[in-house]
């Protein structure tokens, strides 16, 4: 009886350790993403061809390919665990991508393989959302105002540029990742990857204009390890 109980407990612990890679109270990798050099100027977007969007901005909004913050912070960088962590089944909650004011909100949307993606159109104009997938299936769909959300999913990991066929300035990115260990750098460039079980990991930072960088980090227990990324900015 006791042998059986011990055996069952052992199996349970083994299962817990091997099947769930997110361990509450596990280690954390956090840090800042910054740039050095002079980034290109983000130009204002002239939306005059789409008056229903143009009038939503008192001053024109700018492109978001390089969004910077104070102290050379670099926003919109997808920081994720590219090796060392197991794949995870997707959450059932949708990742929502909204077209509003002829912009994509958020500019970079990170979600998991096979997680439902929901695209909403909150504008008065028709958009045609076109994710330019190379590994996954490429599609484009028109979404007139008042039509239901577009729901789809991707079954492979990929960074997918997204454009609107009708409004050339609209660009975004889908980061389709294999597990839940991802974080997008915020206004101060900061990111955080919590709940990591002990192990050796490769942390990768992806920026749509400046490329990818990776660093190795080892987590033992509940410690917080600091990892910083510095990207080289390009003036053009």
């Amino acid at each position, binding site marked *: 009886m006791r042998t059986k109980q011990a055996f069952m407990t052992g199996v349970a612990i083994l299962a817990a350790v091997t099947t769930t890679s997110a361990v509450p109270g596990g280690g954390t990798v956090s840090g800042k993403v910054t740039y050095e050099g002079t980034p290109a100027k983000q130009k204002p977007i002239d939306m005059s061809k789409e008056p229903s969007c143009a009038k939503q901005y008192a001053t024109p909004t700018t492109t978001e390919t390089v969004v910077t913050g104070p102290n050379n912070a670099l926003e919109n960088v997808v920081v994720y665990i590219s090796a060392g962590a197991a794949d995870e089944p997707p959450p059932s909650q949708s990742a929502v991508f909204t077209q509003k004011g002829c912009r994509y909100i958020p500019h970079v949307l990170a979600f998991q393989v096979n997680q439902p993606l929901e695209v909403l159109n909150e504008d008065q*104009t028709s958009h045609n959302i076109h994710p*330019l997938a190379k590994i996954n299936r490429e599609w484009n*769909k028109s979404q*007139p*105002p*008042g*039509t*239901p959300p577009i729901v789809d999913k991707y079954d492979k990991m990929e960074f997918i*540029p997204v454009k609107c*066929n009708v409004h050339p300035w609209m660009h975004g990115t889908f980061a389709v990742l294999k597990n839940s260990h991802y974080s997008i750098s915020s206004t101060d460039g900061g990111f955080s990857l919590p709940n990591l079980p002990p192990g050796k990991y490769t942390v990768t930072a992806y920026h749509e204009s400046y490329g990818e960088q990776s660093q190795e980090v080892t987590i033992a227990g509940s410690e917080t390890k600091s990892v910083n990324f510095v990207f080289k900015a390009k003036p053009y």
Partner: protein
Amino acid sequence: MEETSAQQAHVHAPPEGFLRKYVFSLDHKVIGKQYYALALLAVCMGMALSWLMRFHLVWPTTRIPGLELISKAGAPGGIITPEYYLSLLTMHGTLMVFFVLTNAPFAAFGNFFLPIQIGAEDMAFPRFNMMSFWTTLAAFLVLILAFVIPDGPPISGWTSYAPLSAVGKDAGPGMGWGMNLWAISIAIFCIGSLLGALNFIATTLDLRAKGMTLMRMPICTWAWFITSCIALLAFAVLLPACILLILDRTAGTSFFIPSGLVVSDRLQPHSGGSPLLWQHLFWFFGHPEVYIAILPSMGIVSHILINSMRKPLLSARVIIYSMMSIGFLSWMVWGHHMFVSGMNPFSSLLFSFPTLTITIPATIMTMIWMGSLYGANIRINAASLFALGFISMFVSGGVSGFFLAQPSIDIVLHATYFVVGHFHMVMGVASIFGVFAGTYFWFGKMTGRMMNETLGQLHFWLTFIGTYCIFMPFHYLGLVGNVRRYSAFVNDYTGPLLPLHKFITIAALCTGAAQLIFIFNLIYSRYKGAPAPENPWNGTTLEWSIPSPPPWNNFGGKHPVIYHDPYQYDVKGSKGDYIMQDSPEPSAG
């Protein structure tokens, strides 16, 4: 003229068995009816597509219930997407121009009546004739397939300009397999039409009965003959053009695609091609094609008018020579579709002169028709009403051509609703009026039962008034500069035009509904119509000398002998007010 040895050589055995009689028939009459049925199906589809288009233009956010079942991607929640609108537009144009306007007045009526009117037992090549129908049907099925594939139908218009049509699926939804199916379908259609044209020409030249000189052929026979000559040359150009397009799309060639094109963020791997080459090839076919669409109806209308007026036209010969000049001039004007296309502007001027000149034979014909009405005694029925309506429509549609023929005016009217109004009136409506006139006139002969006259006249009034209500306002929209092929009107200047668009849409839906009267009449009369006598209209041409419907070999094994020109009406000293072509009674002095 030669003895009828050519005729005797073409005798074939009576058909036996259901398939040979009604399906894979060699009988030109059955084939004519098969073409008519195909055209009827195509026109119903084409019209339904236009209702969807017109509805979407004025009520873009209103759900069309059930449409999402036909196309989940094209009409999510029953609301037509911009690309689905364009694919409806493309399929509407393709179905109407190819499968209705080339099939009905030309292939359907021509097949049924040309051999009879020249006194032949059948076409020169009955097997080719059967093949031409089944080829055309195959083309239709390939085209319709585009509706059911996931990608949907193409969105590049019936004119399929390159490079939009040539670069492949990067160009947009429907431009993958949908566009391939379109090009394949039209290529197959060309083959069917070439076979048909060959047959008509050989039959007309070789199988005329004794005494049936060329100038004694009825005007509609001449129209079918001239149309076949045009068709033979025109489709011979469209076929290779479609093949080149298919090669550009699938084999990596660059006939129509230059280098350096970035479509949908992809640099296209082509170089050296010319988009203008497609336009030249297409319109070199496309302009003669519109005369293929209208000439048979001109012939049918002439034929019916003479019979209705009870006197010949002022000159049948002038009509025939005018049709020939139109046929000849039609080869010289294609560039008027390309005035602002980027081709050499001097060429634009050159093309405008024959375009303006073609007004002359068209005017001569109109004046002969109208002038012939003077002093006549016009019998009014559904057939003659549509024939008279044709004249009105042809004038209305034709005068807008004055504007478009001039490059300087085309600068402001090109690609606006003015052009759409022009071609719908002069080609679409006028040609269809010829088909309606022919149907009411010849239905008795073709089926053995007469169509209902009351319903026919009701159909005429609703259609005549309705089509004017739809297409005359298109010209006003064009004069303001309302651009065509827009799936929605979102410009500053188009807002105030929406009330007129709503009027047009309502007129279109009502006129469309009125066509149900015609369809009901067709089906009802087929089974319950009054039995048709041999010559219900007291006509002179050979179709009225045989039973209704005719036997499988038309003349029952006899060979008619022709003594007169085809329009011996109002003949002094004759028994009735007409003399039939095969009657030995002496003709007018």
